[in-house]
């Protein structure tokens, strides 16, 4: 793994991106033992509005805490994809939810899967789309270990939803594997 990874998880308020960012940070920092900083940007509204969560994972110290050019960009809305794709690092990975993102940029290293509809179909709830996305990111990029993300997910999701979230993560792992 390289020295420093920058991830941007983007979409709309209510899609669970803040929690996803926190889980990724915990996976990298607490369970994989790296240095990590997570920041966020969202509007005053509780649902809707542009929302993003950024995670910087590094072997060394992290000064500037925000993401400049993401190595990994997750876009859960068309707006987010259009807005942030130009900032993707050369050779970086773009992961989109094709349930919402219909127009893809002309780019090769892209994982385009209907994350939200898969979450509903295979796990039974749309709300776990963020956890499915974490599974995809983990398996496709290896930015955190599978064990770490699993521990982090299980320690952060509400009590009683562990099984559902674990299943969502497994589904994400499978999609990630198939997309490679």
């Amino acid at each position, binding site marked *: 793994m390289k020295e420093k990874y920058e991830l941007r998880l983007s979409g709309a308020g209510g899609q669970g991106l803040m929690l996803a*960012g*926190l889980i990724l*940070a*915990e996976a990298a*920092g*607490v369970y994989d*033992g*790296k*240095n*990590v*900083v*997570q*920041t*966020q*940007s*969202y*509007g*005053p509204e509780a649902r809707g509005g542009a929302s993003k969560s950024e995670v910087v994972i590094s072997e060394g110290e*992290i*000064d*500037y*805490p*925000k993401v*400049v050019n993401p190595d990994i960009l997750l876009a859960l809305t068309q707006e987010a994809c259009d807005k942030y794709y130009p900032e993707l690092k050369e050779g970086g990975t773009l992961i989109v939810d094709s349930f919402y993102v219909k127009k893809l940029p002309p780019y090769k290293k892209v994982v385009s899967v209907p994350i939200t509809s898969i979450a509903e179909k295979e796990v039974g709830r749309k709300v776990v789309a963020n956890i499915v996305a974490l599974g995809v990111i983990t398996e496709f990029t290896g930015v955190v270990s599978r064990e770490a993300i699993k521990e982090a997910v299980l320690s952060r999701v509400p009590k009683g939803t562990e099984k559902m979230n674990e299943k969502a993560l497994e589904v994400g792992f499978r999609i990630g594997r198939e997309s490679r």
Partner: protein
Amino acid sequence: MSKARIMSGNEAVVEGALVAGVRFFGGYPITPSSEIAEVLSRLLPQVGGKFIQMEDELSSVGAIVGASLAGIKSMTATSGPGFSLMQENMGLAFMAEVPCVIVDVQRGGPSTGLPTKVSQSDVMQVRWGRHGDQNVIALVPSSVRESFDLIIDCVNLAEEYRMPVVLLLDEVISHMREKVILPEKDEIKVIERKKPPKGQEKYFPYEITEDAIPPMANFGEGYRYHVTGLTHDETGFPTSDPEKINQVMRRLYQKIEKHKEEIIKVEEKYTEDAEIAIFAYGSVARSAYSAVKEAREKGIKVGLMRPIILWPFPYKKVSDLANKVKRIIVPEMNMGQIIAEVKKVSFGKVKVEGVNRIDGELITPSEIMAKIEEVS
């Protein structure tokens, strides 16, 4: 406690406040400080403390002043719009010399401004937001771990100097989550307020002492005294005697002036041989340090001076810096507030230039780098 954790600046403030002995919070939640109230409302009752959500910010400071007079370490947390409303009772806390801590997590303004976006535009409001003369103490953390350390310092300074102390966070630091390993409790120094000896026939709550900090009796522990916002003599009762007024006002001023060398805290990086110096605080200091390292790699001799305590301002240290560098750059997320303080003591010695951003986004290392390259 010593396990690695992922924690936000706001959460670190809560942890630190509890360790420092804060047992009362009166406040009114406001983004980006709300998590402080939220988490304290859960944790304070578990340690025998009290949490009250007040009707507004005026009463919030009223409540913490009252709780502190009764001997409880007290704090509140707010953001710019609430901080404006708190000024009135903060003035009372200065005048009546009541220890308390106010956390201001800065967001864009004026007015309700930008609730979720970063800013550093309250740095002069902290200094001069209230009417009347007073010396202030304000601390500016740059990381989650430092938010923990500095809220403890705030509580300690408030108790030691018998006055309100402000922790000045910015949105980036308060919401940012970072990996931290917190120190064990026995490694942390906690200061209690100086009390008068028991059983004295007379107690003067505002007597002139050598250190300019009179001992403070808690209400309910035997001594009674008068608390007022009016200028008072050593008994606490209002006075219009010019000599007494002069005494108490000068002592209030001296409280900080006398001890400022002990209070002031700055961090310097690569300043020994620097030709260009950056003076930056809070989250912007992180961008600045990143730019310093990049500039050094390019062979440009740049250093960073970062105030950890913004008020009292480190005039002497900045003045010394201005004697040895060719240029000072002050990046800040306002239209240029602290730059004026830097200029005060570098006038005629060195040119001082700002990098300013007021669009709710954090100044980037490349913006500071561009300025470095422009002036080098």
